[in-house]
């Protein structure tokens, strides 16, 4: 029914099957929109957050998806600025993932901040001394960049390309894409850093407070490094997942290995930096504020296991796997290592958001636990459903993986060779 919209030479499932696939995600998105609507109409009393526990599931989700979406800027940087041409095979996917992550984060932030009719205040009356302002501006700008980067991918749709003005605009815009890649890198570096900086400057929260360089706490640099490290891993992981779901080869194995190697290298540097930072924090920063670091881990479930899991299990271990060529060459190691790296950065953002607020900092304060309300979970799920829907439509109608067609021809020939040999 929609064949003329699908790229030539690629195979997609039938329209009814596709509708069947998207239906539950639409249902989930509708449920989430209802939950988000309740929060916007009735207020944040619909959530389990309060003045004491002001950051919850949503901020954790924002931080995690923005870190995972870093694959968009970092892949663009590697391809267009450092000229790693092999990454052409995944750049479109990285842009779609980035767009989904950033737009999803913006939507959740809009619900979290509330007062949507006054959303423009943050741009019109910015506090230029606030890292949150920097984050808001950078994310908004980068989302604009991602939307512009998505336009050429959209206009390459088989049907849209038949419109001369779309074809020409796509061609001309693509010629300038390196400018957008450069701007995207600049913006991403700053907002990833500012997100980390948000926590590092919290002098009243010694669990998160860090020293650093000039006005930038160490978390500023750690967030940049960790996002750059897991961005390629997330692109790898999603590509593998799409390959599994669609039962198609979409990129060459060497590209996934390259992503793994880049991720492993940066992850190793991150683990080293994070370990040094943790040592300085345990031995100097935290005691100087009157809190021995062990105290933070006295409240369950946040024991020292979480620190070890973050640095060793989800940091050092995947880094070592991704840096070992023999292991990296095998999917059974490569994919779990990428998944562990992604889980590691999500855990880091969870710790920075939830554990920071759970730990008491005043003598009359108490340890707090927080469980998100169903409205919070619903909104969270809506973002996940939205991501799946955007990616599914993009995969079906746009050329997300340019090498797919040739790999299909190759795969078909490889399947037929034994048949032909048998006939002879």
């Amino acid at each position: 029914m929609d064949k003329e919209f699908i790229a030539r030479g690629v195979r997609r499932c039938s329209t009814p099957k596709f509708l069947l696939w998207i239906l539950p995600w639409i249902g989930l998105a509708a449920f989430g929109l209802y939950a988000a609507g309740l929060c916007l109409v009735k207020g944040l009393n619909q959530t389990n957050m309060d003045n004491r526990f002001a950051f919850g599931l949503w901020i954790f989700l924002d931080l995690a998806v923005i870190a995972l979406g870093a694959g968009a800027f970092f892949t663009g940087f590697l391809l267009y600025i450092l000229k790693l041409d092999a990454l052409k095979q995944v750049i479109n996917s990285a842009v779609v993932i980035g767009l989904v992550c950033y737009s999803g984060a913006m939507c959740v932030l809009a619900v979290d901040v509330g007062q949507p009719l006054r959303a423009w205040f943050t741009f019109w009356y910015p506090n230029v001394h606030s890292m949150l302002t920097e984050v808001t501006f950078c994310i908004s700008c980068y989302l604009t960049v991602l939307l512009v980067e998505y336009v050429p991918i959209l206009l390459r749709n088989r049907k849209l390309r038949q419109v001369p003005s779309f074809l020409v605009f796509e061609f001309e815009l693509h010629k300038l894409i390196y400018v957008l890649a450069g701007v995207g890198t600049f913006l991403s570096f700053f907002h990833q850093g500012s997100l980390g900086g948000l926590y590092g400057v919290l002098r009243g929260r010694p669990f998160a407070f860090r020293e650093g360089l000039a006005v930038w706490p160490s978390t500023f640099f750690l967030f940049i490094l960790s996002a750059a490290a897991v961005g390629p891993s997330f692109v790898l992981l999603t590509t593998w997942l799409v390959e599994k779901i669609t039962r198609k080869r979409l990129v060459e194995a060497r590209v996934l290995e390259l992503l793994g190697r880049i991720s492993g290298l940066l992850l190793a540097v991150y683990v080293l930096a994070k370990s040094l930072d943790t040592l300085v924090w345990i031995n100097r920063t935290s005691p100087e504020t009157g809190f021995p670091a062990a105290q933070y881990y006295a409240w369950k479930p946040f024991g020292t296991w979480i620190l070890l899991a973050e640095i060793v299990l989800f940091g050092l271990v995947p880094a070592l796997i991704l840096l070992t060529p023999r292991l990296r060459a095998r999917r059974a190691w490569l994919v779990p290592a990428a998944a562990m790296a992604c889980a590691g950065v999500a855990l880091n953002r969870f710790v920075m958001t939830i554990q920071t607020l759970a730990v008491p900092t005043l003598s009359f304060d108490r340890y707090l636990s927080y469980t998100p309300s169903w409205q919070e979970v619903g909104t969270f799920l809506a973002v996940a459903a939205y991501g799946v829907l955007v990616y599914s439509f993009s995969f079906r109608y746009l050329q997300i993986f340019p090498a797919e067609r040739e790999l299909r021809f190759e795969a078909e020939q490889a399947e037929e060779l034994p048949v032909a040999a048998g006939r002879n």
Partner: protein
Amino acid sequence: MLPWNYGFHWNTGTIVFMGAFYIVLAIVAATVLSALQRSRRALAAGKTEQIRWHSDFHDLPAGDRVCRHVLTGEFQHRECPHAFDCRECEKHAQLIAARPVGQPAEQEVCGMEFPLDRFYHRGHTWARPEANGTVTVGLDELGSRLVGTPDSVELPQPGTRVLVNGTAFRIRKRGADVRLLSPVDGEVVATGGVSRGWYLKVKPLERRFDPRHLLRGAEIHPWVMREMERLQLALPAEGATCATLADGGVPVADIGAGYPEADWDAVCGKMLLEP
């Protein structure tokens, strides 16, 4: 945000932060506006077809973008840097000057006729200069056997300008809808069809037909052999209702009829250089 806003102060933080923000916005806006402006100029200059081909050529697999001199064995590996427009290629001029293209003994390749009185485009169209100064454009034997008897043919109106590597005409067959690339720059003066053995008669621009980008003579045989290999790779071995190429023989008149289960749109797209 702006100096007239309540609470606005000119200080270093404001200037640095807002300066950086506005510079970024200006760069993004300038990039989009520049692309729009370039597009407007390109559309006004009638470069759509040229751009379409450059875009398509970029999307072809590396193996399909090889230089014609790879086909004749003068290079092991070389990607065409001019999107199959050898008129711009200095290397081609040097090689042709050093070793002019010879004439083969016969015009039959793999049981298909490739007459030597014409020039061949890599997208399976041919151009034959006529005594009256026009150029006749047709589909070569392999291309004809790929599309068999087309379901429909979309020809340009007389008076339409066609450009080398731009769309000459479109053919629809068995779910495939492909454009055929023009081997010549000029103005369409007459249209033909399948039954007439040619599709267009074109008056070349400036009354001069320049065939430097087209294959001829001894170049035809190695090119067709390579095309047959590409075709074999594009066709599924399973599901064929006739003898397959690997079994020998010559291609049948309507190859598509022998592969009812093949994705004919993909096969034609690959062979006729429309990714």
